């Protein structure tokens, strides 16, 4: 069900035009429409390219191009007429007016041949009967026939769509569940949390053709077929042209070209590629994820270490009131951070600090993780300092060194050597914990896996891939750290 708002406007325009007849309408008298086009040698097709897989923008050879099954149909029509095809993009609302004022020669834009429209333009036969399917698990194929088979079960659909209203209102004894993401619906289906998912036919076909465990059944939703079918629109009265093109349309239908050729061809251009769902194909997405995961980790370790040293020193401050207050504050901070989940801290920084300064998600994430890590690092450093034998301090003091000199020349060098393993562990922990910033939309590894998941309609494979990737990262990191640790101990 495409752009109902546009449709409404179009109807209003159409109603308006019945009152004020336009100049184009007397073309009806003498129908030389076919001749005119063939003389011109060019057929201008108007379309609104934001409705995949019907028509949409895609980058082809580096250039943004209008592609989709309607474009294929346009090409076929032009070829059969023996003319060249020219495509004009415009908003859907402008299509009818553009046709009637001669700016374009035909509309192929998933347009429904409604009675209201029929009054103002001439439609060819329907070239594609869209409508709604219900996607189910293939194993249930024997069980379900259509929307009425799900009594006692649960149907899902994207919230706010026509099919969502349909599963709510056109079923009985069936629970309906709305989710915002199509791919989450499919996952819920595959994990048996739903029994079926209602969606537009082309989407259903894309899912089914890409996932062998799924099947599609007709929904049998009670909708006027006008609302789900698409036809080509020409100017009113272009009977000869329409008749000629109808032959093409009939051929397309007879040979089932839309399903066989046009939809698969269109699929190739969808977002990335809905046909190749192998994980290797998405290596770039995963690489970006790794890149951001590592950026977050490295930055957070760096800032966390600085924050940690400052906090550790503040926690050991002794003396006047100011120093006591500092110690108290640092202690409270460390305890609070260590007592609350990192996820909450990330949300707090992103939404809370965001009230005052405009921070990108990545920055917010790094800040939150650094602040978190700092509290832990502070404890490692304190622990490292405490782990230096008290005898070392006493020996230094008995040699006449001051408190500061003792800390600087004797205790800290040994403490840092002691905490190196802990810092290494913290690094590895942060590789894992950086996953949490996915919730604020930073494109690290988990976030990327969700993108790949919704792109490939494959639920578990991307999770397995990033699991392995995370393991490789942490494993490599721990080997490298062990190596340096051993080298440091040899010194």
């Amino acid at each position, binding site marked *: 069900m495409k752009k109902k708002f546009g449709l409404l406007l179009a109807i209003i325009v159409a109603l308006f035009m019945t009152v004020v007849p336009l100049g184009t309408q007397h073309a009806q008298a003498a129908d030389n429409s076919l001749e005119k086009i063939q003389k011109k040698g060019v057929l201008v097709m108007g379309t609104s390219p934001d409705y995949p897989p019907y028509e949409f923008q895609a980058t082809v050879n580096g250039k943004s191009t209008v592609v989709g099954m309607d474009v294929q149909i346009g090409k076929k029509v032009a070829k059969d007429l023996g003319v060249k095809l020219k495509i004009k993009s415009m908003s859907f609302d402008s299509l009818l007016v553009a046709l009637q004022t001669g700016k374009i020669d035909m509309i192929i834009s998933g347009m429904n041949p409604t009675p209201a429209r029929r009054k103002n333009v001439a439609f060819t036969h329907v070239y594609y009967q869209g409508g709604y399917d219900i996607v189910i698990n293939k194993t249930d194929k024997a069980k379900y026939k259509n929307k009425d088979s799900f009594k006692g079960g649960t149907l899902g659909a994207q919230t706010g769509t026509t099919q969502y209203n349909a599963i709510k209102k056109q079923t009985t004894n069936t629970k309906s569940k709305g989710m915002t993401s199509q791919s989450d619906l499919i996952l819920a289906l595959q994990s048996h949390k739903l029994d079926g998912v209602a969606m537009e036919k082309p989407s259903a076909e894309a899912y089914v053709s890409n996932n062998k465990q799924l099947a599609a059944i007709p929904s049998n939703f009670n909708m006027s077929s006008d609302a789900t079918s698409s036809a080509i629109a020409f100017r009113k009265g272009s009977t000869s042209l329409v008749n000629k093109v109808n032959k093409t349309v009939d051929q397309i239908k007879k040979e089932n070209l839309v399903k066989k050729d046009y939809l698969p061809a269109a699929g190739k251009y969808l977002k990335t590629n809905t046909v190749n769902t192998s994980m290797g194909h998405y290596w770039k997405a995963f690489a970006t994820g790794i890149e951001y995961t590592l950026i977050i980790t490295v930055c957070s370790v760096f800032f966390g270490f600085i924050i940690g040293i400052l906090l550790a020193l503040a926690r050991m401050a002794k003396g006047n009131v100011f120093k006591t207050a500092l110690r108290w504050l640092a202690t409270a901070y460390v305890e609070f951070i260590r007592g609350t989940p990192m996820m909450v801290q990330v949300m707090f920084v992103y939404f809370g600090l965001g009230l005052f300064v405009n921070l990108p998600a990545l920055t917010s994430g790094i800040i939150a993780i650094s602040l978190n890590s700092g509290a832990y690092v502070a404890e490692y450093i304190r622990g490292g300092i405490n782990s230096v034998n008290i*005898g070392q301090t006493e020996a230094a003091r008995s*040699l*006449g060194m001051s408190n500061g000199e003792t800390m600087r*020349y004797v205790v800290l060098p040994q403490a840092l050597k002691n905490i190196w393993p802990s810092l290494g562990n913290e690094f590895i922990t942060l590789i894992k914990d950086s996953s949490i910033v996915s919730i604020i939309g930073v494109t690290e590894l988990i976030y990327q896996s969700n993108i790949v998941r919704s792109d490939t309609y494959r639920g578990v494979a991307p999770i397995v891939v990033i699991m392995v990737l995370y393991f490789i990262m942490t494993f490599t990191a721990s080997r490298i750290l062990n190596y340096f640790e051993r080298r440091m101990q040899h010194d």
Partner: protein
Amino acid sequence: MTKPVIEVESLAKSFGDNHVLKDITEKVEPGQVIVVIGPSGGGKSTFLRCLNLLETPTSGKVAFEGQDLTTLDTKSVNSLREKMGMVFQGFNLFPNMTVLENIKLAPMKVKGTDNATATKTAHELLKRVGLEDHADAFPDSLSGGQAQRVAIARALAMNPEVMLFDEPTSALDPEMVGEVLNVMQELAKDGMTMVVVTHEMGFAKEVADRIWFMADGYIQENNTPDEFFAHPKTDRAKDFLSKILM
């Protein structure tokens, strides 16, 4: 009569309710070697640590060359500690530095001695304790006896006027006790003022000028070694000696 190097007056030290040192009044003359003996937990270490203010006395006075340490500010205490070298049971060498660096650290950082002078002094001291070959070794690679001798050299590098030893040989394998005691004996011969806590009765008999027998927070006896070992006056001392000599 020369001025005493260390004077202790009515020194007391408690840890909470634990009155470790109760009332100690003694003095150490220049060049004297004092050996402190007594039962475990009797407060010998605490007493030694009070002498250079590693432990702050609860009450009483500790004077070094006539100056009451308990009244000084932190900075002066630091510089007074330089004049009292201390050697611990556990060596406490800095494990991340070579032997040479261990010895040079305090002179260079505290006294501001330049590297060349400090290195020269360090090598001399290492020769004195018989370890000139081990200047670049790390403490981990030393035997206990060697480590303790380095600790002595390190303390000597600050050119102290008194040396305090807290059971310097009790963490050592029996074979290595001798080499450390030898170094201490040499030091005593060279006229160093020394306060030594030890269980090595042979050393006490041979080297000490006075034996202080400490128990229950008091110096119970203060006598020459000959007199003390031959005729201990208190029952506490007799009991202790009977146990320790088996």
